[in-house]
């Protein structure tokens, strides 16, 4: 810019600068008027701020509900998120001789016990993280509940519930993994990544102590009000303690604690077996503690997964012949295909009522429809094959289902699933007495196993066997039948250490001796023309303990063996 007058520029500049200062000043004044500092403090509207939450009894109840929920997810699951979902309870039987996972041998449930268990098994991981999820919620609850202003006895009861829930999780952890980290307070991520394993005995001691403490402050089952259905009672905690003692072979203690439950007299065996597992009679006093579901808002999606294809289900639960053959005839005699009471045309005829309440079979009726699973029934969606999304054994599941249900299979079914039943208490009591080496009296049998067998709808003749060894077989079979699909079979196999016997070799489904397709289609053939299902190769000493999930040892190598 030729001829530019620098002095003039300076003068101009100064005045401009003055103006600028003025403008900037006003801009900032404007800015600060509008500065919305308070807008920068935002809090979520759809969650409870922990700092202000633990104040009222009503909030404590909200937290208590959340704690019972644990990691239960409503809707279908392929991997358990919690021990107390349908997936956590019913599907666990896929790993046993009771049931086969329609998804096939590669199912990670099946792999728990077929000799191919690996640390990356996602079922193992699901139970593991579900347990610690409940532990963390309970720890948080216990750390805060004292801040709530409410009567001490209410605080004590809620604390007992938290300790009960936490102890049940450590019970499962101790039973399936053995040595695991014992976490009793909320952690930071750094702490969580550096935990050490505690010996199984320490975990067992912890469960023992905690359950005992919980029993003190929990209400008796009989005093649970209608509005408290689903909450823990003394009996629930005692039953878990009984389980712990049984597994630890502390049979005298087990017997004592079970006796206490019996002596309370709050619970009794229901007259009907089938309706115990449906909304019809799910609140029977026989169901000591159940996973709670309601239609729509907290649905149980088991119908979607387990209904037969004809009812638009995915038929994932396939009872094995091994279990089916345990159910005797309704006169109390043992089952045999050769017995004339067995009818090929109606496998449920003349059988233990619990067979009919638990299974569906070829040409039986389910939801008012014929269930056709004969291998030759090529036009049936439930045809027995290795290819359809239908049975793999010739059986299906009836237990847990209200057959009049007609809603959405995933979202509308509200049937509860029992976690502890009084029938288990009675059978476990007898087992404790038996294994403790105590004399077996008819009175004891009548007080325990015969109550279970004698319920009105079942009405099997009483057991009179008092020889411990013979009785053991009868008792174990009774337990297997009575508690089928309730998630206890694998634990029983582990603690009885019978995996090597019952989880090896070939597994078969229902027999179809007249079938045209059977001889060419069944992968293996059987003299009784039973459908071949699978073979297992349980590795005793290795598979009775689950590996710590690979994803955990990746992060914290201290958890590796």
């Amino acid at each position, binding site marked *: *810019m030729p001829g*530019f007058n*620098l002095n003039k520029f300076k003068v101009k500049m100064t005045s401009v600068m003055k*103006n*600028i200062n003025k403008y900037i000043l006003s801009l900032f004044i404007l*800015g600060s008027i509008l500065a*919305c*500092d308070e*807008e*920068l403090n*935002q*809090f*979520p*509207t*759809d*969650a*409870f701020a*922990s700092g202000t*939450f633990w104040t009222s009894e009503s909030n404590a109840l*909200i937290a208590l*509900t959340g*704690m019972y929920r644990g990691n239960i997810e409503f809707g279908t699951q*392929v*991997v358990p998120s919690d021990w107390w979902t349908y997936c956590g309870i019913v599907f666990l039987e896929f790993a046993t001789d009771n049931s086969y996972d329609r*998804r096939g041998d*590669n*199912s990670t449930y099946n792999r728990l016990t077929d*000799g*191919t268990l690996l640390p990356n098994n*996602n079922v193992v991981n699901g139970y593991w993280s579900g347990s*610690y999820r409940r532990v*963390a*919620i309970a720890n948080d609850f216990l750390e805060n509940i004292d801040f709530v202003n409410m009567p001490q006895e209410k605080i004590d009861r809620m604390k007992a519930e938290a300790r009960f829930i936490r102890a049940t999780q450590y019970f499962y952890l101790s039973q399936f993994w053995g040595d695991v*980290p014992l*976490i009793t307070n909320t952690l930071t*991520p750094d702490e*969580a990544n550096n935990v050490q394993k505690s010996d199984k005995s320490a975990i067992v001691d912890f469960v023992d102590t905690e359950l005992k403490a919980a029993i003190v402050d929990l209400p008796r089952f009989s005093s649970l*009000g209608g*509005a*408290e259905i689903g909450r823990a009672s003394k009996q629930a905690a005692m039953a878990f303690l009984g389980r712990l003692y049984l597994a630890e072979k502390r049979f005298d203690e087990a017997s004592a604690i079970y006796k206490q439950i019996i002596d309370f007299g709050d619970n009794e065996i229901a007259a009907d077996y089938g309706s115990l597992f449906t909304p019809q009679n799910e*609140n029977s006093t026989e169901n000591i503690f159940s996973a*709670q*579901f*309601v239609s729509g*808002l*907290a649905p149980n999606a088991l119908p979607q997964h387990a209904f037969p294809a004809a009812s*638009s289900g*995915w038929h994932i639960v396939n009872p094995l012949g091994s279990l089916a053959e345990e159910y005797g005839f309704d006169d109390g005699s043992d089952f045999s295909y050769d017995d004339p009471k067995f009818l090929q045309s109606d496998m449920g005829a003349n059988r233990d009522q619990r067979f009919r309440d638990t299974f569906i079979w070829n040409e039986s009726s389910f939801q008012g429809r014929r269930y056709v699973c004969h291998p030759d029934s*090529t036009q049936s969606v439930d045809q027995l*094959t290795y*290819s359809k*999304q239908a049975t793999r054994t010739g059986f299906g599941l009836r237990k847990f289902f209200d057959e009049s249900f007609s809603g*959405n299979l995933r979202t*509308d079914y509200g049937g509860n699933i029992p976690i502890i039943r009084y029938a288990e208490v009675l059978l476990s009591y007898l087992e404790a007495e038996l294994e403790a080496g105590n004399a077996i009296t008819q009175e004891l049998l009548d007080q325990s196993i015969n109550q279970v067998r004698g319920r009105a709808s079942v009405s099997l003749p009483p057991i009179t066997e008092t020889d411990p060894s013979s009785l053991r077989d009868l008792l174990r079979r009774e337990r297997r039948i009575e508690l089928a699909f309730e998630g206890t079979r694998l634990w029983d196999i582990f603690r009885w250490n019978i995996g090597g016997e019952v989880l090896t070799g070939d597994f078969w489904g229902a027999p179809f001796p007249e079938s045209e397709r059977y001889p*060419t289609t069944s*992968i293996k053939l059987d003299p009784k023309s039973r459908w071949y299902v699978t073979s297992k190769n349980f590795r005793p000493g290795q598979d009775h303990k689950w590996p710590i999930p690979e*994803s*955990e040892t*990746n992060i914290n*190598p201290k958890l590796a063996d």
Partner: protein
Amino acid sequence: MVSKNLLYGCLLQCLFLTTLLANDSKAQIKPIDETFLRMTNKEWSVQEVFQNLESKTDYVFIFPDNLLTDRGPVTLKAGKQSVNDILVQVAQSSRLKFRQVNNSIYVGGSQSTNQSQEVTIALDFIEITGKVVDQNGQPIPGATVLVEGTNTGTATDLDGNFSIEVAQGSVLQFSFIGYQSQRITVGNQTSLTITLTEDQSSLEEVVVVGYGTQKKVNVIGSVSQISSEAIENRPVQQLSQAITGQMPGVTVIQRSGRPGESGGNIRVRGVGSFGATPNALILIDGIPGNMNDINPDDVQSISVLKDASSAAIYGARAANGVILVTTKSGKKSELSVSYNGYVGFNQPTQLPQFVNSWEYAEMYNIASGSNSYTAEDIQKYRDQNDPDNYPNTKFLDYLFSEQGIQTGHTLTLNGGDEKNKYFLSGGFLNQDGIIAKNKYSRYNMRLNLENQLGERLKLTTRLFGSIEERNEPQATANKGGELEGQLIQNAIRYPAVYLGQASNGDFGIGPESGGTPVSWLQSASYLENPRTRTGLNMKLDWTPVDGLVFSAIGGYNSFLIEQRSYLASQRLNDNVIHDQSYLNQFSNKEIFKTAQFLGEYSKSFSKNSIDFLVGYTFENQINTYFNGYRQDFPSNDYTVIGMGGADNQRVDGFDAEWAIQSLFTRLKFNHDEKYLFETTFRYDGSSRFPENNKYALFPSMAVGWRLSNEDFLKNSSWLYDLKLKASWGVLGNQNIGNYPYQTVLESGRNYPIGGSISTGAAYSVYRDPNIKWESTETTDIGFESSFLQGKLNFNATYFNRNTTDILYQPTASVSSVLGVGIGEVNTGAAKNTGWEFDFGFRESVNDFQYSVSGNFSIINNEIITLGLGNVEQPNGLVGNGSSLFVGFPMEMYYGYNSDGVFLNQEDINSWPSQSSVTPNPVPGDIRYQDISGPEGVPDGKVDPTYDRTFLGSRIPKYTYGLNLGSKYKNFDISLFIQGVSGVSGLLNGYAGLAFFNLGNIQQWQMDGRFDPDSPERYPAYPRLEVITNSGTPNTVASDFWVTNASYVRIKNMQLGYTLPSGILDKIGLQNLRIYLSGENILSLTSYFEGWDPEINTGGAYYPILATYTLGVNARF
């Protein structure tokens, strides 16, 4: 269609430079017949006449030395006469002829006696009228028209018209800022239409930067800009698709072709974070927005701020780049109406081929080791005599059977005067999906106004709105679920052995008894997803004194997303009637408000120029979400929520809010456009951080040196421009949830107590109460160069981005012993380094113009530390053991190296034991390599601890694009090729595996399977097996599955024809171009057969689409 250069050129030229450039008509040489003078009536020598005229007029006479010898004297008339008359007299008497070129009069001799010819000298001057337009036929006002070699010239008027008198044979030069100048030799024509093409490398080019524009030569940061030209007539549905491959360092990955949801993921210079979403900040006319709601026809330019210095003005949210979309503005011209429209169709770029029912049956028998389908069954499938019972239903082909007709229309009105300018556009897009009942439509409206309210007050108003609607088919209520998850995924999953629809109209119930895609598609289920966006933003500029501007900006956007999904009941056949139905409906209202105040002072003094900006901004957004659910509708004719059954009805909702306020300042300085300096500070406060860490300061600075302006290079003939540049800065990222630091109990953890649902809440997420900003430090060094008068340019940049305090939810890095999820914590650091290159060349030879431009980027993405989760794995890698490892890129695959499959038992026995991966290997199982062990060397067994390694990343390492364009007379053709390489992809689930969860098998899987009868070491697919949804030992991550996803594709190709002006005049149009365009025409890739390389899926996907259109651009 207004191009960016025109706009900014206009601005500059009209406002600042007019006087410099206007070789206005005053300076023109008067014609010789209008130049009068008096000559005395005497005998002149010719020489004297010339000298006299030269002294009295501007003309000079040019003639050969010996011309005047032997020429006799001339007697001129007396009195006032024109130069013309004088020359006529001279010519007649001396047999000379004259030719005027501007102010020069060439004198030639003639032997001819035919004198009449000699006197026509003035007729050599012809009046040329014409019009200067841009490539789109838009007039360019203010363009310079100059007679070459003289100062004679003129400028075009508002409509681009000019008129000038020139001698025949002279050369006219047309120029305008931002355009390549053009030379025309004047021949016989008297009317010219000159089309100027944009000059990308022009020194005057202006780019959009944060809070303003800047001459490109003075930009020190790394800014890539594309103009409307680059996205014009591309039949893209979403704007983000249009920028794929156009700019170095900008990677767009399109994972879906779903109509209305097909926007790409934009990543600027790699992936900056494995925590907070590494999305670029997108600003539309300065207001945060969504790129995909804009009509691409409304876009003037898209500018990407890549380095710290250019992006720092947006500090807190700029760490992953800033994309500035500028919409078109009105122009000072008469009303101009233009219309762009096209119609075309879509088809998938790739479609997987599934086997026939009989082949499926055969393969299933092999996979299951059973005889599930008897030979008789298989024969019946093969015969196809009884399709009701032995069908061959190709579900995927059935589903994807529509043409996908797509049409787009935009009508634009544009104009204004000195004080008021307007731009109004209305657009409509309709895209039918390749699936029945699937479509997407969008209506856009935009009004941009500029009003000079007073001499020093200007108001810019931008008003826009869009209405979009996505329609999709849904599965029925018994099945639940939506388009991708149910219809498409199950069309992939369901084998051909299942019936679609029987001859009597009944539907097949499918493998799950819930129907099939065939029945669902014919059900009454539907999804409607309307979205309404409106926005107003106003900017008031006050210029109290020259060079000082205060601006106040207010913006208000409202966005309403609604969705209604009705899942119908349906009768499949007499036995299977699914009578459930349900309706899910939600609305999410988003209100965004901003207030911004800016002050900017610019001044030039001597050779220095400074620019100082300060600003304050406040932004706030409130979301309100509400949803409702009802089930058991009386029939599929009543699908409003009020008609649902009373049971299980539910409502839900929440509010969410965030706010951010910022102060910033920027100082730019340059000396002689030679030494450039810029610094920026931004101070941001965000509601997403706790009190103690709410505010953070983000500084940056940059320096540049234009060597080409130095004396020693200034006169270089080959070098046009050369600039070295470097910048440094720190930027932030806060793309995380709204409430990341507040410890809460999660609500909605309801559970039945007492037989009915009770409200529950639980401790669910660990939160760090002290989180702070994630920050990225970027260093950038590069040069920009331009040669051959700007025809050729080449730029290169190296960058280094270090992100620290990554806001990450380290779920996979935290033991589940923690028992709860984990919120964002500041943990980890990552680095992206890389190179960006781009070049361009443009040339025109007579009627033939062509251009080549391309870009290439190399991005190295690397995790520096995970912080929490830095677990030293036994195999020496440090990381979370699954997806993130120090020293490796993010989005990586971790797994085994494979070496084909086992051929036989001996092979298995002699191979290192892989029982901890494959407990019972059989021939045809994938053979994994033993790469290490506890001692760091192979230990004789394959296990997850030691033998997994890095297999690739989903982040492309190399991205490139190549644009070829050419124009000949009225034809134009362009080709845009784009590609990525150094990238891996994976198909899994139903898409990648045969017989996954009772799924189907693809042709390539059948053809390439391991066959025990003729075992092959490296089959395309291992042995067939029935795979559950938890996989098998063969499906764990390995390089058998992780596949090179590199590709090169013809992204767009266009062939256009512009009608000649003669025809246009007859039909009353100013401009009309007809074109054919194709998008995603051809891809070269080695990815899985039948799958587009950008697709990574388990089956729930929507194919990437190729689009072919016929379009028209018209201006009235």
